[in-house]
């Protein structure tokens, strides 16, 4: 904010200036002591915001967040030892007293349990994928699996907030906001950061708008949540009896009024609001073109699964994400709820996989056939992993798994990542990381790097210090980058 106050001080008429600073130069000198930055270059002119620091590998991101933490042990991290040792207690030497959630801390035993679902190797890369994800398996050679993610929080809200904003507390800008701030929008007729929600059929966990908040950044960088209804962006239609010219006229007059207000108070939110009105006006043309699903070829509908025509489904969100990304939206954040399998994992996980597998793979293939996969980074991720031992009753047919922040799997495809590889490894119990850990901060640093940004230089001064998405940690993982 201090910059805005400084700016505001310059918005004075000569009369005001002479009146208020009647001590002339002496006051100015004093002013320079009080506002150290007054005579130095302002931050925005020195750092080249709105452009990458170096040649980017990816221009846009689609982050498919699987909300609730799908089990890595039933999806991509194959641990046959757990099947062999099913029912036996987790050795204390593996857990080493690491903390548990309140949900399992009271359990007297921690019986190991292996995947109910079969695993196979796919593609030239020989990636292990469970039978729940037959379509993702088909595009395994486009994917870089990270088996060694780890995080700090053990419960959904802080962990989700951490992977989305780089901090657990929930007052920092979201990853999409940082990218919007750092790179600006490619297409000025759409927001740079869009959010799409869908709900699966499993045990759900909420998502909250703080996850796509702009924090201390300018509010134009906030994520824009699109509706799950037929009308993806509400109130874009001109009201009956009013045409586009009327609206233009109204906006021009309104902008004049807002400008008066801005000159008086210098509140940057006023300008942000004017910009939002203008964007909304352009969105009236840009959005209907985008959200019209009827023009997709039948083959595309079949590829995503025909649920992609039903607004609000994960498949529809994947298709829309492709369309938004194609139209230059920097960051599209999907959340798919229902992955929190504390119990009835065998019952719920197949339903969740069914809802997401086909569309996820289709998104990758669709981007590829349009020549866009090279410049679009697709991230499939979650907030943490699940335990290798059973929560609650263990039977041959069913079990549950608790939260596990010490290791989990995420993957990326497209945009400059090493396709067809697996990075990092967990031990044979699937509990601790054996090799090449990737902390959430490291992951953020790497993603920013792929987008042409140095995570240490993308900063914003707030409350007297410079903030980063990676705050004071994180390093780029070269092993993920092609």
């Amino acid at each position, binding site marked *: 904010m201090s910059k805005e106050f400084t700016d505001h001080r310059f918005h004075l008429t000569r009369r005001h200036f002479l009146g208020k600073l009647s001590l002339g130069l002496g006051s100015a000198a004093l002013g320079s002591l009080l506002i150290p930055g007054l005579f130095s270059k302002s931050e925005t002119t020195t750092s080249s915001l709105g452009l990458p620091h170096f040649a980017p590998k990816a221009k846009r991101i689609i982050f498919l967040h699987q909300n609730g933490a799908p089990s890595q042990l039933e999806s991509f991290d194959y641990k046959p030892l757990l099947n062999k040792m099913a029912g036996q207690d987790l050795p204390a030497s593996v857990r080493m007293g690491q903390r548990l959630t309140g949900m399992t801390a009271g359990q007297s035993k921690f019986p190991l349990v292996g995947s109910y679902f079969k695993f196979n190797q796919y593609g030239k890369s020989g990636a292990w994928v469970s039978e729940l994800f037959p379509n993702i398996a*088909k595009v395994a050679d486009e994917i870089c699996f990270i088996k060694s993610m780890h995080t700090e929080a053990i419960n959904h809200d802080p962990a989700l907030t951490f992977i989305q904003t780089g901090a657990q507390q929930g007052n920092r800008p979201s990853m999409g906001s940082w990218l919007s701030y750092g790179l600006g929008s490619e297409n000025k007729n759409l927001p740079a950061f869009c959010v799409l929600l869908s709900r699966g059929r499993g045990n759900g966990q909420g998502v909250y708008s703080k996850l796509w908040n702009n924090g201390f950044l300018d509010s134009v960088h906030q994520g824009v949540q699109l509706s799950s209804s037929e009308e993806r962006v509400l109130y874009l239609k001109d009201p009956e009896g009013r045409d586009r010219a009327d609206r233009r006229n109204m906006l021009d007059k309104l902008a004049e009024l807002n400008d008066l207000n801005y000159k008086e108070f210098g509140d940057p939110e006023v300008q942000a609001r004017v910009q939002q009105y203008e964007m909304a006006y352009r969105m009236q043309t*840009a959005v209907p073109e985008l959200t019209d699903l009827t023009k997709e070829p039948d083959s595309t509908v079949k590829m995503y699964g025909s649920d992609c025509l039903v607004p609000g489904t994960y498949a529809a969100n994947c298709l829309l994400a492709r369309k938004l990304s194609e139209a230059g939206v920097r960051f599209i954040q999907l959340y798919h709820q229902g992955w929190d399998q504390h119990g009835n994992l065998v019952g719920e996980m197949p339903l969740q996989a069914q809802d997401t597998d086909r569309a996820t793979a289709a998104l990758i293939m669709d981007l590829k056939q349009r*020549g866009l996969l090279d410049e679009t980074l697709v991230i499939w991720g979650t907030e943490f992993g699940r335990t290798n031992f059973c929560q609650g009753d263990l039977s041959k047919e069913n079990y549950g798994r608790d939260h596990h922040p010490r290791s989990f799997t995420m993957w990326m495809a497209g945009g400059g990542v090493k396709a067809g590889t697996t990075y990092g490894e967990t031990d044979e119990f699937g509990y601790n990381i054996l090799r090449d850990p990737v902390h959430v901060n490291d992951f953020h640093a790497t993603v920013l790097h792929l987008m042409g940004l140095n995570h240490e230089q993308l900063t914003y001064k707030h409350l007297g210090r410079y903030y980063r998405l990676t705050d004071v940690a994180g390093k780029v993982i070269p092993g993920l980058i092609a």
Partner: protein
Amino acid sequence: MKRLIDISKSITLFLLSLTTFLFAFTDRIVLPVWLQVAGKLHPLILHLPIGIIVLILILVLLRSQFESEQFKKLITYSLLITTLTSAITVFFGLLLSLDGEYGFDALQRHKVSGLIIGWLSYISLIFYQSSFKQKALKYGIISVLFVLLIFVGHTGAELTHGENFVFSPLQVSEPTLNPENASVYQLAVMPILEKKCFTCHNESKTKGKLLMTVADKFKKGGESGLAFITGNPDSSRMIQYIHLPFTDDNHMPPAGKTQLTEFEISLLEAWIKSGADFTKKLGEFSLPDTFVTLANQAIKSKLQPEKVEYNFESVSAATIKNLNTPFRTIFPIYAKSPALEVNFFVSDYFKIEALKELTEINKQIVTVNLSKMPITDEDLKVFSSFENLEVLNLNFTKLTGPGIANLKSCKNLKSVSLAGTKITSESLLPLLTLPSLNSVYIWNTNITDMQKTDLEKKYPKINFLLTQFKDENMVAISRPNLINEGILQKEDKIELKHNMPGVTIRYTIDGTQPDSVTGLIYQQPIAIDESVKLKAIACKSGWYCSPLFESSVYLAGVKPEQVKLLKPTHKKYPGTGAISLIDGVKGYIEEFKSPDWLGFIDTSFEASFDFGKNATALNKVVVSYGDYMNQGIFPPTELQIWGNKQGNFKLLATQKIAAPKAYNPLNVSFITASWEKSNYSTYKVIVKPNGKLPQWHGAKGQKGWFFVDEVLFY
């Protein structure tokens, strides 16, 4: 003047003697801190004697230009200053050498020769002051001084800047190592150390007594201990020093020197972690090993340096700004790059002039995205002057093919996207001889699989991408959608929609199942005269029919004047009280905690609806309930409707529903009852929850919930 000369001479003699003495007993000296500062001034002071000795040499060569008396004076004074400054330099130099950061041999050469210069200049001063007439000797001594000076200067420079500092640019850089014979250390690690560490940690300059150029010495470490601990980068001193903040004196490489990149740090860490091996070759590591992965990357990147720099000039920021519109964005590919990327958006606003205007910056443009813009073959002529164009996106434009020949002059073109256009295989041919072209995207064009295979054979360097998606199985189409959910008013009609063109929707409202041949075909919105249970499917040739879409559609009824709950709701689900039963707002059972719903479990639902004095004749009631069996929310078992005319309630009708036999999908449904039409003033509705959940349910035997959101009268 003579006095001044004498004092200077004495100081010089004293300093030279002291230095010589100290030189002989270097080992015994402990240097006080303030003298260390003097030592640091050595590199500054030394320029004085150098400059003056060169000056003296020039004076000697030009001696014929001076009168002999004057000349003698000039030389004497010059030599005096030389001797004094040399003595100070030599003394300071000795102090500096005590820092102990230099290799012994090179330092010794420098020290000895420096001392000799000091003494020699003193001797020559004596020479020139005396009446000694041997001219050859006089001038000879100056020449010797000069030659010595070059030697001392050079040994000194080597200490500061590293060996072979002067000629290094002329040397052939890095003799190429054969990856098959060289160790991974030599290939990937040493080049980093060479650039960032060896300049200060070599044989001649060994800061911190750490010698890194020789493997054995490197392993032994320096004066503060081991440089690295095999297998443990985090405890290794060199890695710790690298990660220290710049302000820390121990930060390596020191502030001001070229720093290590993130990649280099990771590589060094991985090297130490994997065992800090100096001799193993690529094949000899047991895989997987992060170090080998990173090393491979380093070696590869060295072999093929990535070319991202462009050698054309950048255009001014103002030009770029002027050309930017909301529908045509232009920006450098990164902050300092001259290369530009252009994107067009919103086809409704596209004009061909917007493309032609780019000719102004045609040299700088490397990427153009025209996806979905109404571009024709003719329009591609613009690109004939875009010599640096690398990526062109023409997806879903109006191209048919012939225009592609215009791209022939884009010699740097790497990738062309033509998906969704009408281009043919033949029209691609002029493009395919471009030297850099590596990707052509031809999905959803007239090009067939066979033609693609042919092209791939003829142009093996180019990747033709049609599609990865192959699925011969027929799959089901998605359900149709009900647009106007909630409660319909009298004149409203049911509207169904499906987002796929060419779909047939079949429906029933009488409770029967529609299929691909039965049921009514939806052609226009459906008029209804009562609440109905709608069932619909969508069908299209080439697809299986959709799963069944079911929804209860409610018709607005006659609104009572008052409503009262005769038994309270469960305390957790009070809704907004009785009024929410007649407020015309439907609930979603997924959100059964919302105020739209009233929940009952221990008691039956009993409410009275008062139509006042002027009640119209009615004959039907609809009670809308939620069905969410996972949560124990069940359909009720029985509905009773009581009517009151003159103070007495009379049972008008009873309706029972059989208990469900399996889980229903989440839905909102209704139970209805009708009676002989009459104008009762008050009605009492009683609904009994399912008192005992069935055997197949997880909570079998327990009580079921009943959730109600609306009660409608007709």
